[in-house]
């Protein structure tokens, strides 16, 4: 979606903050938010594309709120708790249990963390389809404006670039957020800065994005 999260190229945000830290957390509550997010993901109710899609629906004023990155994580987890029927609105606002938990779910155990961290969760999937593009092909990013989740940032739409890597066949986020993995070929596409930003682009600028095949047409 053309949401507040799609920030590439925006003006007005000022100097880079926190160059000298603290990191990665400013406050203890952020640590708890981070850990809760990982643990809740382990329930297997949602995938990363659903989580990102949900984050992108954050109201702009909340997305940019002073509480920052982990504050919006908190808001998103509260929404997910409601959406996936983990708790009622009253329970979320009071912090007090008043109804039984959703059945069939079990908390991640400490001994599962090392395995989870080391194994990860690859997005690569087999496909019968051959890749449409190869390294060196000139392509144009499509002008699409989906109202739901996509990983094609606005700043490259309509721009012409060149395929520099074929990255394999991966879960396609635009459909995976709706529960359909629909694997697509993925490509690194390099754009000249002048192509994206015009003739006054910074000297020597190139931007490379990873684009799924449905984002691209031959140029």
């Amino acid at each position, binding site marked *: 979606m053309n949401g507040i999260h799609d920030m590439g190229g925006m003006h007005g945000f000022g*100097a*880079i903050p926190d160059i000298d830290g603290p990191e990665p957390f400013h406050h203890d509550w952020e640590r*708890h938010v981070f850990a809760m997010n990982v*643990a809740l993901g382990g329930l297997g109710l949602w995938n990363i594309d659903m989580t990102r899609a949900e984050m992108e629906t954050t109201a702009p004023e909340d997305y940019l709120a002073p509480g920052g990155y982990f504050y919006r994580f908190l808001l998103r987890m509260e929404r997910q708790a409601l959406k996936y029927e983990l708790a009622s609105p009253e329970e979320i606002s009071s912090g007090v249990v008043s109804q039984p938990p959703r059945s069939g779910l079990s908390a991640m155990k400490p001994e599962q*963390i090392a395995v989870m*961290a080391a194994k990860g969760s690859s997005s690569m999937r087999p496909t019968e389809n051959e890749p449409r593009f190869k390294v060196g092909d000139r392509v144009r990013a499509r002008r699409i404006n989906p109202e739901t989740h996509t990983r094609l*940032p606005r*700043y490259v739409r309509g721009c012409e670039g060149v395929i520099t890597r074929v990255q394999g066949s*991966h879960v396609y986020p635009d459909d995976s957020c709706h529960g359909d993995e629909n694997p697509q070929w993925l490509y690194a596409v390099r754009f000249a800065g002048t192509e994206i930003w015009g003739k006054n682009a910074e000297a020597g600028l*190139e931007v490379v994005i990873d684009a799924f095949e449905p984002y691209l047409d031959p140029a």
Partner: protein
Amino acid sequence: MTEDDHTGQDHDHDHSHLTETESRVRALESLLTEKGYIDPKTLETILQTYEEQIGPRNGAKVVARAWSDPSFMEWLLRDATAAIASMGYTGRQGEHIVALANTSRVHNVVVCTLCSCYPWPVLGLPPSWYKSSAYRARVVIEPRKVLAEFGLTLPDDMTIRVWDSTSEMRYIVVPMRPAGTDGWSAQDLEKLVIRDSMVGVRQALTPADASAARAAGKGVRHV
């Protein structure tokens, strides 16, 4: 600025906002714990894993080895996932890694404009600045100005290639090996490979930088 003032808001407002957020986090955590969805011991293990065990020292070892061993460098640039896995660094938010070698002609910088994608197995959790609106918005349009804020100025005739991590591919920059390090052990080379150099916002430390930091009694910054 103190930690509490990091937002630049007036102190009282920020404190009351902070207290409210803390309460909200505690309430959610206790609710989810009581309902059996999360286990506090698991939360501790998660934090220990990502605060103490997995961090940019991993990436520094990878880079130092690549600098020391041309055949490892070749493998790293050809198949970073496998080369890095051979050193024991694998997994979450780094299942598919690409290594980007800086040269005298091309300087690479990594960002995730859409969220905060970052190669956890080699660099640990991303620093706040990487996840900030300012970095996400600005580095794809004015990287030279952004790098200048980190103290790095590059010649106009260099290419600056900004990699926006829009998929599950994760990127690590291999900074150029500093001059004056011939014959250095991988262990000593590691100390020059600061975290920021593997994102691309700074170069690796020179031997002089590293000595100066030690002389000042400082740990190496931005590791």
